[in-house]
């Protein structure tokens, strides 16, 4: 940004103000750093462990507890549990981010159109949301994960049974409503404002008003929702895996299916349950704190009722 020469005080841009508000939220700052570290270690596992998830450490003991060589212990095949958890984290984080991104884009578009156009699109959307809320999320997801087994078209459209693509598609299909509602609310309150009228008077098209004038005002809530959706998606994927309906462990390890595979060994080998579980809790906790900090920073007007 070019600052006029001779000015002593720099003007504060909105993003700089937001950054200052964010910095004040200490827990969110710490969480951001922890999340970066988690991301780094998960995608570059060699930073933390010398073992590959499928490599057997012939020198180790099966189901060994935590030790220097294996900080999270070993599993039934003498593989390093830390390596498996980091590898599983790749899928869990990717699923979380993919679901959040896709669903936020869908939600923002639907919410924007419903709020801007109003009329039947708006009421149809609200009714569909009503319907989606009547059937518990986990139940409908469990039912739909079985669709590709029985129908070829579902396999082509949604992805094959137990695949990452299937889980991401299904979650994204049911995660957009919250964003849509929030964006709709913001647009409803803004579309009668003078600046929109001014833009229209200058001959701007509906698309331009929506994209250039209205949606930028929703960036705050959208970013906050994106963050919180990542946490919700990670938890939901793990819950599905826990019940045996998520990403199949034969395809790829995730935090959810690692935990699910270990739940029978809680008594004999608790470290197998604790390692992926703590990974989930730590990640989700940091994402939630980050979301809270972002809400303070980007969306200061919004009342903070539900965490």
């Amino acid at each position, binding site marked *: 940004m070019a600052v006029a020469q001779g000015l002593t005080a720099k003007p504060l841009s909105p993003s700089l103000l937001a950054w200052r508000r964010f910095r004040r939220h200490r827990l969110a700052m710490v969480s951001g750093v922890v999340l970066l570290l988690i991301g780094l270690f998960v995608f570059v596992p060699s930073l933390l462990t010398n073992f590959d998830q499928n490599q057997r450490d012939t020198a180790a003991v099966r189901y060994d507890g935590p030790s220097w060589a294996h900080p999270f212990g070993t599993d039934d095949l003498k593989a390093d549990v830390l390596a498996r958890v980091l590898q599983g984290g790749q899928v869990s984080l990717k699923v979380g981010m993919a679901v959040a991104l896709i669903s936020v884009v869908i939600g923002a578009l639907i919410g924007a159109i419903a709020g801007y156009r109003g009329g039947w699109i708006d009421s149809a959307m609200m009714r569909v949301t009503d319907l989606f809320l009547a059937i518990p999320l986990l139940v409908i997801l469990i039912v739909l994960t079985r669709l590709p087994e029985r129908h070829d078209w579902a396999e082509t459209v949604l992805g094959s049974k137990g695949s990452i693509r299937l889980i991401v598609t299904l979650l994204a299909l049911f995660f957009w409503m919250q964003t849509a509602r929030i964006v709709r609310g913001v647009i409803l309150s803004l579309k009668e404002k003078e600046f929109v009228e001014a833009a229209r008077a200058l001959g701007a098209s509906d698309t331009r008003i929506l994209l250039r004038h209205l949606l930028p005002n929703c960036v705050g809530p959208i970013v906050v929702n994106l963050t919180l959706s990542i946490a919700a998606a990670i938890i939901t994927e793990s819950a599905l895996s826990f019940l045996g309906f998520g990403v199949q462990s034969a395809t790829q390890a995730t935090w959810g299916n690692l935990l699910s595979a270990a739940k029978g060994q809680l008594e004999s080998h608790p470290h197998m349950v604790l390692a992926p579980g703590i990974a989930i809790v730590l990640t989700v906790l940091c994402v939630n704190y980050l979301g809270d900090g972002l809400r303070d920073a980007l969306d200061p007007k919004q009342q903070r009722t539900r*965490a």
Partner: protein
Amino acid sequence: MLRYVIRRLLWTIPMLLITSIIVFVAIKATTNPAALRGPGISSEDALRYREQLGLDKSGTEQYVIWLKNIVRGDLGISLETRQEVWPDLRSAMWNTVRLGLFAWLITITLGVTIGVISAVRQYSWFDNTSTGLSFVGLSVPPFFFGLVLQLVLVLKFQDWFGGTPFYTSQMNSPGESCGLCADRLRHMVLPALTIAVQGVAIYSRLMRASMLDVLSSDYMRTARAKGISERRVIVRHAVRNALIPVTTFAALDIGAIIGGLIITESVFQWPGMGMYFTSSFGDGDYARVLPWMMIVVVSVVVFNLIADILYGVLDPRIRVE
């Protein structure tokens, strides 16, 4: 108010119908009844069985027949066990409702109490700690929290103290069967805590926000100006009003109990609706899954309605809209 209630009721009926179609199509499309594909069944037998079940009719006909029966209260016969669906379903419902209501009571009591104290002592150490902890509560998924409770309070507890007051699975010890005795409570505490932890986090935040809202209103100043004691101002004037929005969520949550304890029931082997669903859906027994789904949907929808009406009754300002 009456017109509002009637309008809501009128929308409920088509909504239930649409949901029943969605449920019917989704379940039919995803289940492959094991009874029809088992080995050793001759093709004539299979055909006769299909006819008996009405599977040779068109989808629409099948739906209409099913809907007629269910409206009349005939929930049908299980494909797997060839027995009436209702007795098993009823006992599963009853088990879930007992556990769910117990957990709900813990949730509301703890959540509201923490929320009120947090708001009255805003930014005190209590407030800060409970806000921080509520994030932890929201971030711990129930399947992991349940396992951690089992590990610490049962398995490790036994190692440390030679015994434990809690159980990790089932509803009763073998041979004991009672409504609400000590044995039942000892089985119920851990699953109930698992369910409550997220709820306590949510309700304490909700109640805190609602209390703060009320505490800054004019009638609070009026009440204090009249010389009413602080305690009475908080309890009679603030808490009662702050409870209004919380009541709506509490009603919604009761409706969600019936279909909402799938994970906890799986962790603690609690023979309720969740286990009923996972086992019958796993078997592909649509005759058991369909009535299950309808009961869950009706429960959510009915309590939705109750929540809306309650809100209007408790807060006359809403009715004007």
